[in-house]
């Protein structure tokens, strides 16, 4: 009798946790996409929560401090870490992406403070939605600049 009570209690808790995980996952799932995938899917992903990653094009960064509106373009980078490694690491892939005009690009708009790490050849990881105008409206913007801190060999090399 006592034992079954404890098992019942345990089962209830387990069910509650499974429910919490399941419903919360449903409610806040964000789909990882690359620029190529967003371009290919087009209208099919308009309005869905997406997490998009791309290489920031330095020349396209514009900031209107009256409206706090930040716009810039990102170029396609692979979403697969192994593929990035195979192409010479993140810094190299970002550099290539920014300098290759044949790659797909997407315009991004973000309202808020201009992040400290935003600059050309940074990797932007953005959460938001694709608008019907093809612009990606980001709610959240994270940046990764691998070049400066993971450089194993000094820059002075080329001067030698």
């Amino acid at each position, binding site marked *: 009798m006592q034992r079954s009570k404890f098992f019942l209690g345990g089962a209830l808790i387990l069910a509650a946790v499974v429910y919490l995980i399941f419903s919360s996952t449903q409610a806040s799932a964000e789909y990882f996409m690359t620029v190529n995938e967003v371009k290919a899917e087009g209208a099919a992903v308009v309005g869905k929560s997406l*997490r998009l990653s791309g290489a920031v094009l330095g020349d396209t960064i514009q900031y209107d*401090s009256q409206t*706090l509106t930040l716009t810039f373009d990102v170029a396609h980078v692979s979403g697969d870490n192994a593929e990035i490694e195979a192409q010479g690491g993140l810094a190299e892939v970002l550099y290539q992406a920014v300098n290759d005009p044949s790659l797909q690009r997407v315009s991004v708009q973000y309202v808020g403070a201009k992040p400290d790490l935003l600059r050309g050849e940074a990797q932007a990881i953005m959460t938001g939605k694709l608008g019907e105008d093809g612009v990606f409206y980001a709610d959240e913007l994270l940046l990764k*600049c691998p070049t400066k801190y993971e450089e*194993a060999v000094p820059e002075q090399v080329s001067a030698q």
Partner: protein
Amino acid sequence: MFAEFGYGILVVSFIVAFYSLIAAVYGALRKSAAMVESSRRGMFLVFPLLSLSAAALVYLLITNHFEVAFVYEVTSRSMPTYLKVTAWWGGQAGSLLFWAWLLAAFTSAVTLRKWERDIEFLPWVIVVNAVTIIFFLGMVVFYENPFTRFWLVAGNVEPHMFAPLAATLFTPQDGNGLNPLLRHPGMVIHPPMLYLGFVSYVIPYAFAMAALITGRTDDRWIRLTRRWSLWAWLFLSFGLVLGGRWAYDVLGWGGYWGWDPVEIAAFMPWLTGTAFLHSVMIQEKRGLFKHWNMILVILTYALVVFGTFLTRSGVLSSVHAFANSPIGPFFMGYTALTLFVSIALLIWRWPLLHGETEMKSMLSREALFLLNNLLFMSVLIVSFWGVIFPLVSELFTGQKVTVGPPFYERATAPLFAGLMLLMGIAPLSAWGHSTIKTLGRAMWKSALAAAILTVVLFFTYTQNYIALIGFFLIALVLFVTFQEFGRAARARQRAQGENFFTALARLMGRNRRRYGGYIIHISMMLMAIGILGIEIFQKETQGSLAQGEQMELAGYTIEYRELASWPDEGKGVNFTRAVVDVYEDGIYLGELTPRIDYYFDSQQNMTIPGNRSTLKDDLYVLLVDWQPVSSMGATFKVFVNPLVNWLWIGSLLFLAGIIFTAWPDHDPAEEPLRAPQSTNQPSAAD
């Protein structure tokens, strides 16, 4: 010279640790006390050896030896000396050495204790510590060597430990420097605190494994390591709190915790550690949960290694892209291997670990502790699921899907609420048996007071029902806990004829674990007030102001007065500082000076908020942008974070509570053993 010395000593330490491992295993299996003693001495030696190696690295760091790749990566000439020292753990190779060095220190301390009564544990404790140290030193010696130098080989610069053929040493002019975001006092001690916490958990795990291997599966291992796990918990908690405070002060997004995988990596061992802290009490008092405690300590160790693997990179905005390095697979392999071996040992000894009694009542204290453990495990499962979900979804659907902070907030909030409710009930329950009736009698006053307070808050402060549930639970726990303090102190006052405060102080001194625990519960509630405040009531606005213009938020008015920008060549920073005047309801409160520091060498900005902090709320002003020449206009982002200060006040009390509980006194073996079968009121002795 120093690089060769440092590396040489590393290799020697590695060999000594390896010798100790072999000698300990041999000594234990052949029952050779001399071999065990030899391994004990060897293990003791590892710490002074590693200290020499570390001293060599720190010397290289503070003397700008940029020919050493690690020094080049993490320091620059413009950094002050103390930051150059702390750069030791600012990069991967150094932080692995730091980890091994801390563990060696703890291991030395453990080998020095009096072992007479527990001599059978000694060789196996050495084995676990030695294996862990060997793993970390192996990473440092073979893959992530902090002493690697740059060599010029046929016109190319290459990193090598020793000079390749026909190569000359290459010394760059200046180093890369530590990421400016990490040049903050909070960040200087945050990683060592986390690492101390991580490393301290190795010791309870080592004793647990020793207990399994030797078959001495009574409570001895728990009693011996109780303080280790408390100190581990202290360091880990302090590390987490410092990380939150640092984010609040430096990252400039008005928050303190973002459910980033790296944060979760440090949070997960904290969850199992907290569950462990509670459930060991049940084993000590009632002889239950023996299997469960083993599982918890094994999980904690695995999560510590896993957490080190995730946090070691220290790359801040790398939310989903961890720095790829050759050591990743080794860490995963090591975690898997230790988990496998530990669980195999546990299964082997399973029959020795059966409970000495059965749980009878759903409301007994042990049942409520079990529930507490289940809830902590649930939070762990939610956190773990969030971290691995992208991998799982990719595996099964081919589509990488991730979950953000809303997932964690939604899924953990009810679990945290459940934990709070338990904090309100469990202190009143009795070992063995409690009923609704006995609990109700003990609780009704506090519950009524909390309900009245909630109604008052409904009419005066907020109608947000989540906040109201939160405030009700906080009030309930606080009232119950204070009532417990008062009830026990008055009982002692009557019995001993002392005045109330003497009685209270002596009572707490006599039973520091119990009352220290209550202090920690109170501090958790203060932190909960702060978290509810910032999560539910945070307000923000932003806008561009011309000089003399104003903007308003939540009763505050800020007026932009002036802005200045000047370079400090010595520090390699350009400072831009705005001054704003703050008014509340027309009354002048003072000025705030939000800043943007631009670091020349890393071409990076750092946004430092101007923050006015009171018990009621924080006014948190960020300088976002400015137009220097034409209009002297500037753009600000302003947050009002109600009640958030309680988070920091609670954190301080929390640390005080743990120190109060963990402060060493007498030998733990003298403490009373099992609690009586059933007591209607918790006795003063538990």
